[in-house]
């Protein structure tokens, strides 16, 4: 495709093109990978940063929101790793193995070995080794086609983890992927990870972030799941504690085999701009998947969740449920596209988004879209945007809870309900604590409609 001449490239677009030009010979991978990168960068360069005339990005105009492209993070050095090691030591682990990714680079020396039945290698090693079937899975070409951000990640991917779960293996405790920031300067990182779950295997992957300071970075992440037949996979992501001005663009890809069960939950409590785009395909028959998420947004935060779910297999069940709490001048975006292909009869799909808007200046944009080409399906969606229920508030206050406590209890319930479905006590407790922390900060800031009267 001849690259369209973009006469008015933004500073960020120019900087990204320069960054790719400078990095491409150093980025890991042989000939085939270089082609993959060039093709992907071609898609990005042709389209530029997505803007509001790109339908999937209508409410998140990245071209205007991303003013500059930060320099690509250098490989972390010894002294910064020491600090991270200290921080990790103080953090309880579940025993399923912890993989640490620093500024987009997998650091085995900070990471655990995985339990029997699971293996991990760095993305860089996998790209260099060049096994075509793994490269294909990593490329995930038939997901999010034409999406400039996904393409940019494919072009620039520095590192990440490639986890393989043996068929039939049962990994009891969650395998954690922990992202840390070492760079003292704000920097950009591009990472891509792959989880290949063998037929009939069971595993849970938990992503989270640690770190203080220097987090006003730009991260372009991508996590690809290839879920074998009858496999049971849980996934959680805690997208938390970044600094104002940061930009986080996460792509998530899941390809589900027959009778697979997949369950994903994400908590977003992050400053700046967050976009999660989830591409999921029911490739085999009779699979079940739940995608859930809670976004806690305040200040001028902008949090976008965009789903692109394709039903190809017969008789699959999809449940998507996302909740937002929006305070101050925050913006929430939920777009859910469910496409049921012609042969995907007996598809059972339900999508729901609910937003509580706590301030006049906050806003929520909902865009559910069902594209149904099969004739024998049960699919529905719902979206609500509202404030806290006055009868519930009065009931709690009539029992003695002051206004802020009553509001907090209801907000905590609203957010916590979805977190409770995660099905792992330790993870639920972490999410609950994160939600309580957010509410605590909100109460401390004296928000929540005045004092005890009123």
């Amino acid at each position: 495709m001849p690259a369209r001449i973009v006469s008015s490239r933004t500073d960020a677009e120019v900087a990204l093109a320069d960054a790719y030009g400078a990095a491409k010979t150093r980025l890991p991978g042989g000939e085939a990978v270089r082609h993959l990168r060039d093709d992907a960068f071609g898609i990005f360069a042709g389209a530029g940063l997505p803007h509001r005339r790109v339908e999937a990005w209508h409410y998140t105009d990245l071209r205007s929101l991303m003013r500059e492209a930060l320099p690509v993070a250098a490989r972390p050095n010894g002294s910064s790793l020491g600090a991270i090691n200290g921080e990790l030591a103080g953090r309880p682990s579940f025993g399923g193995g912890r993989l640490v990714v620093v500024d987009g680079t997998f650091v085995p020396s900070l990471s655990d070995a995985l339990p029997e039945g699971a293996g991990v290698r760095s993305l860089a090693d996998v790209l260099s080794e060049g096994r075509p079937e793994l490269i294909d899975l990593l490329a995930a070409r038939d997901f999010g086609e034409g999406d400039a951000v996904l393409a940019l990640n494919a072009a620039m991917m520095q590192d990440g983890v490639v986890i393989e779960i043996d068929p039939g293996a049962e990994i009891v405790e969650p395998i954690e992927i922990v992202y840390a920031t070492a760079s003292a300067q704000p920097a950009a990182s591009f990472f891509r990870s792959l989880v290949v779950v063998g037929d009939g295997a069971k595993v849970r992957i938990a992503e989270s972030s640690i770190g203080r300071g220097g987090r006003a970075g730009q991260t372009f992440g991508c996590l690809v799941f290839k879920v074998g037949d009858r496999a049971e996979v849980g996934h959680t992501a805690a997208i938390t504690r970044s600094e104002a001005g940061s930009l986080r663009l996460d792509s998530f890809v899941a390809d589900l085999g027959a009778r697979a069960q997949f369950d994903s939950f994400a908590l977003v409590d992050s400053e700046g701009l967050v976009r999660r785009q989830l591409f999921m395909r029911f490739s085999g028959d009779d699979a079940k998947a739940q995608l859930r998420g809670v976004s806690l947004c305040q200040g001028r935060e902008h949090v976008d969740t965009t789903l692109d779910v394709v039903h190809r297999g017969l008789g699959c069940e999809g449940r998507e449920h996302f909740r937002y709490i929006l305070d101050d001048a925050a913006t929430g975006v939920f777009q859910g596209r469910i496409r049921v292909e012609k042969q995907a009869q007996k598809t059972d799909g339900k999508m729901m988004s609910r937003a509580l808007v706590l301030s006049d200046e906050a806003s929520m944009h909902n865009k559910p879209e069902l594209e149904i080409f099969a004739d024998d399906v049960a699919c529905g969606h719902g979206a609500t945007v509202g404030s806290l229920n006055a009868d519930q508030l009065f009931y709690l206050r009539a029992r003695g809870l002051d206004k802020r406590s009553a509001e907090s209890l209801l907000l905590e319930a609203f957010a916590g309900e979805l977190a409770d479905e995660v099905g792992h006590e330790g993870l639920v407790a972490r999410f609950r604590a994160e939600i309580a922390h957010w509410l605590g900060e909100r109460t401390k800031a004296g928000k929540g409609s005045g004092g005890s009267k009123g």
Partner: protein
Amino acid sequence: MLEVRDLIVSIAGNTILDGLNLTVRDGEVAAIMGPNGTGKSTLAYVIAGKEEYEVEGGEILVDGEDILAKSPDERAAAGVFLAFQYPVEIPGVGTMTFLRAALNAQRRARGEDELTTPAFMKRVNEAGAMLEIRKDFMKRALNVGFSGGEKKRMDILQMALLEPSVAILDETDSGLDIDAIRIVSEGVNKLRSAKRSFVLITHYQRLLNYIVPDTVHVMSGGRIVRTGGKELALELEQSGYRDFAPHSAAQPAAE
């Protein structure tokens, strides 16, 4: 002790309570009966502090102190308790979490220490046993999936825990089966004390066989129009409310 004096309340421009007077002394159980839509629940809500009502005149005193300027939670701490005609379901809020938060909030507001976990559990278990509430209900979200009667029992359990000085029970008997009325009534009777005032809003004389009131008030047209002893309830059972058309017999009852 509850004293309501010349209370005038409107909502959305309609006057609902129109110069209502009611005194319930310490230790007294007062029943309020009256036709549908006459303002009984409005009175209960206004005492508890619901915000959407406009109080245009009058006073409400609890133990001699005017509570009208207080928020609902401050009134609760001052000893007001309302058992709702329709208790609210609160998904995601565990019953125990809620009970503990409510009890401790009131204790804090009164300058008392919070209860320890064992002390709290003991109190809940005792109240639950008295009201024959199944233990697994305590593990559920507050009132979610409870039947109408189960919700009412949960409200009475809260009353037992919170030990109010003025308890208003808005049609607690409606929706209760025969056994539940007996159980709830026994619970209420145990909580009768020389320091506590009860207001029982009910449509049925039957409840008053279980909880024998000291006084019975007939409410109509936003006022108490007649006050008597427990025999007044029996009389109403026979005659209905036709003698108590609002304001004057000349006005249509729907006004």
